[in-house]
């Protein structure tokens, strides 16, 4: 117990007395974890936005004119019950003509020519996950009530591949930066201890055990990691708050992430900083502790 007090007080003294070196480590942690956290937030933004971009109608099922209305509505409720489907809506001949009219509002000549009754009724399907459109189409195509199934299939595939690419990019960036930050932190703390190698050598000569020497350094490393991570978290909160409150509303992109995400990852980043600090110190001290 008393020994614990001594070791903690040594750690605090170490922090005070080696301010230059401590600052260096804190700065390294701060910068690298800000980058990691930033990458995570960007990744989350991509996710939030791609799900918005994927909104809208995904599959249109044109129905045959000779099928009775009940069969049509029955098909709709069957589709609605499928797992992949989020929502459906029914558009009868009148509704189809209204859409057609809107489309050619500026070309009255065409509108005059076309008879409302020739346009087919349709069921519009919104999917939970766009990538399932092929299954849904496949199941509908042979239905006797269906005249034709239309999807923006290729466009979906492209969008999905873009989203996936952006997600990979974000995760890859976060992982790379995470590794980089561990290396930087370990590096900096190792140098910090290198700068105090004589001190460690003297402690060993006077009979201090390895743990007795190590613990204050580990505590110092933890504090440095925590402070750096705290600064990083603060920086990202400030930046996120600023951007999301100042971004113009008409922006196509949404620039704020859920609070839950911020809270969870803040805690993760703080833990990561503390662990990286401890690990960095442990690695740093090790080579000076060989008897």
């Amino acid at each position: 117990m008393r020994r614990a007090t001594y070791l903690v007080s040594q750690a605090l003294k170490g922090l005070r007395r080696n301010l230059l070196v401590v600052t260096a480590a804190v700065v390294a942690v701060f910068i690298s974890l800000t980058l990691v956290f930033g990458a995570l937030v960007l990744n989350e933004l991509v996710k939030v936005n791609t799900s918005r971009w994927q909104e809208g109608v995904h599959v249109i099922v044109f129905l045959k004119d000779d099928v009775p209305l009940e069969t049509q509505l029955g098909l709709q409720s069957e589709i609605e019950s499928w797992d992949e489907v989020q929502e459906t809506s029914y558009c009868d001949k009148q509704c189809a003509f209204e859409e057609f009219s809107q489309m050619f509002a500026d070309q009255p000549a065409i509108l005059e020519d076309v008879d409302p009754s020739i346009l087919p009724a349709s069921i519009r399907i919104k999917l939970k996950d766009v990538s399932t459109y092929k299954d849904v189409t496949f199941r509908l195509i042979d239905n006797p009530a269906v005249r034709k199934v239309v999807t923006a299939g290729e466009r979906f595939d492209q969008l999905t591949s873009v989203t996936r690419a952006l997600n990979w990019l974000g995760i890859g960036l976060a992982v790379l930066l995470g590794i980089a930050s561990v290396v930087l932190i370990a590096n900096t703390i190792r140098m910090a201890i290198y700068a105090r190698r004589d001190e460690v050598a003297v402690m060993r000569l006077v009979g201090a055990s390895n743990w007795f020497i190590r613990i204050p350094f580990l505590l110092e490393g933890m504090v440095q990691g925590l402070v750096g991570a705290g600064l990083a978290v603060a920086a990202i909160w400030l930046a996120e708050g600023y951007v999301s409150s100042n971004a113009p509303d008409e922006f196509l992109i949404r620039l704020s992430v859920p609070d839950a995400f911020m809270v969870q990852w803040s805690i993760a980043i703080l833990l990561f900083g503390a662990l990286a600090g401890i690990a960095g110190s442990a690695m740093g001290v090790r080579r000076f502790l060989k008897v």
Partner: protein
Amino acid sequence: MILLEGVTKVYEGGTVALRDVDLDVKKGEFVFLVGPSGSGKSTLIRLLLREERVTRGKIWVAGKDITKMPGWKVPHLRRSVGTVFQDYKLLPNQTVAENVAFALEVLGRPQSVIQRQVQQVLELVGLTTKGDRYPRQLSGGEQQRVSVARAFVNRPPILLADEPTGNLDPATSVGIMRVLDRINRTGTTVLMATHDHAIVDAMRRRVVQLERGKVVRDETRGTYESIEEL
């Protein structure tokens, strides 16, 4: 207490610092280690602390074969051997009092005991007023005295001193020697490397003389120079 058998130390690069040294120091003895610069005195002390490892031979300290001792036991060895280093080896970021206290902290002594013992030993070496200073704020001799105080403070059964008076004026040296003598009389084994003629000749204790790494003289009540040389 200290026993060397056929100890040879060859440093990387091929310097032979000790050649086939045999030495037996009994409990409670006071031994002067003399010899010209570079003859291996500090090397011998470093070997006793396991700061360096022997190239050949065996060393027993306090009954333990330290040449075979596993690394994690070395701190225990060092805590039972107080050492005054030739280059002081003080912690630059700790005050004088903290440097001295460190030898007690590693033993886990209670704070009250530490404070009292540190005060006592600083008085002994005449540094009571300088406990709050950092080593760089001391004169050479004062740093040496701090090193002496740290070696004494935990009353170890063995005391090694590498030129503990090298940077001291004669008066202070005599003071330090009185302390060493007193400590020796309480049963502590003392091994002291020195160049100081006057002290060796005045104390008339056992003298071991090294010359190029070999023991060339071992007299029970010797002087700095061997009788034949004089």
